[in-house]
């Protein structure tokens, strides 16, 4: 489902502040697996995740997602591909505080041809699944951190992606909420989705659903634990 071949990502190539954030990494995640990218701060987890999530392109090497060589796609097609296949849960949630919960969830569907009431229906169904149906008309800024997390998850799922990518999803959550998050991810795994999580939280990488852990140091892949 996801394959990286000799992927390198360099920021500010040729400048004094050049950084090799990911160095010659090759990994593979099969369909329906949960993978964890683990490593200390600055080891390149977020960068590798952004390549898998089709947010950025590598400096060299190949990234295949759902059978497509996304590292070769022109920018426009990369965006389209991401919208269709990838759901992203950001560390900071990236929600729009002034909008209602349901409007936040609908945002990724705006560029699609789906009619507005259809989008809304889909968003409400997802919120209901996550136990948020009573909050759907609240403004996001009126929600607790855990509730915001669930809105972010609903938003990542609204386009029904086959791949879900999460960056440090439990960093701002207490243990109970983190466990709640992992329960939701586990359910998504049971639905057959492929999940990649960047984290250094033991609660996450010790969870039974995790199939593979990729250990990173200084942009390099140092160990694969299956």
């Amino acid at each position, binding site marked *: 489902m996801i394959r990286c071949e000799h992927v390198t990502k360099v920021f500010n190539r040729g400048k004094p502040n050049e950084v090799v954030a990911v160095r010659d990494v090759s990994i593979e995640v099969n369909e329906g697996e949960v993978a964890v990218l683990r490593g200390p701060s600055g080891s390149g987890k977020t960068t590798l995740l952004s390549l898998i999530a089709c947010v950025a392109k590598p400096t060299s090497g190949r990234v295949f997602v759902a059978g497509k060589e996304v590292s070769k796609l022109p920018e*426009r097609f990369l965006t389209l591909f991401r919208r269709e296949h990838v759901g992203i849960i950001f560390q900071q949630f990236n929600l729009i505080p002034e909008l209602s919960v349901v409007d936040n969830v609908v945002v990724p569907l705006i560029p699609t041809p789906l009619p507005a009431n259809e989008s809304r229906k889909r968003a409400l169904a997802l919120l209901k699944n996550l136990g948020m149906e009573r909050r759907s008309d609240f403004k996001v800024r009126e929600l607790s951190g855990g509730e915001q997390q669930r809105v972010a998850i609903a938003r990542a799922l609204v386009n029904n992606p086959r791949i879900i990518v999460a960056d440090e999803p439990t960093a701002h959550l207490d243990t109970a909420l983190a466990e709640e998050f992992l329960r939701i991810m586990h359910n998504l795994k049971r639905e057959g989705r492929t999940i990649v999580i960047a984290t250094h939280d033991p609660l996450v990488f010790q969870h039974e659903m995790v199939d593979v852990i990729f250990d990173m140091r200084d942009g390099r892949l140092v160990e694969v634990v299956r």
Partner: protein
Amino acid sequence: MILNFWVISQIVGTVIVLLLCIYAASQGVRILLRWQLESASEEQLELEKRTYLISTLMQYALAFQVLSLLLFAATADYLASFIRGAMCAFGSLNANSYGFATLWVKIFAIFVYSSWLVINHLDTQAEDYPLVKLKYALLLLFLPLLIADAYLEIRYYTSISPNVITSCCGSALRTETNPYGFVAMKFPTNVAMLAFFIAYALTLGLLYTYLRRRQRRLALASGIASLAAFAVSLLAMFTFLSPYFNVVLFGLPTQHRCPFEVLRAPAIGYPFYALLFLGGIAGVLVAVVEPLKAKPSLRNSAAKLQVQLAKLALLGFGGFLLISLAFMLLFYSMVGTVFYH
């Protein structure tokens, strides 16, 4: 040299476009030499990113060049009031040997530029850069044309002298020693008229049949016919067609065969010529797009675009013909005949 806002902004625009194109062409050389679609090397991925940037730049540069024909015509018309002896754009263009040369080069170039724009557009419609090499090879090929276009335009503007008395359409027509080759104006009007209607019947017929049958040879024939119809239309404007407008709009004598007067009725003149260029360019592009359909990743988008272009060509030529016929009718109601010569 006459310095005013229009002249200066066109010269500046032309220089910018030229610099952009020279930069793009230099990058194009690199792409032609180093492009390896299969590779995942840093250089190839960088080239893929770069071609996107360059083609976006080129798109704006060439779109400006296409529009610059309109600006050029409008400026020539406007300059007539500063040039002694000039009554309309004809006189301004006739003020030195560069004027008409620039116009003809720009008219020819507009077909080349719009072909490139369409090829570039199609290239960006596919995921696998199917036309990237063609695109940059063409860019290198037409760079001399672009340089000629810019050179002539700048020479034209900088050589205009307000003290030289130019000859405008009225007198230039009568002078036997017309320096800038207005054989077109002396072309037998009846032959031009016949050619005009034959070319239009053929082109509109071919475009229409192409839209119904979508055959390769019809697409190619439509393109050739469109180019012919475009050329014959220009000839028509220098011979039998312009007097209909000049008499009806301005009450000029029937032997006044200037194709530029009509621009003095901007609401009619510019849309009228715009329709002609639309017909000519879109029609030619129908044929240009045809061979591109051979690329598997372009088949759908190219076929779709081709149909849109054929419709636009029909609209352009159809509109041009209708306006021409309308003015022939108006002329008839005033003069009592359309065969005035």
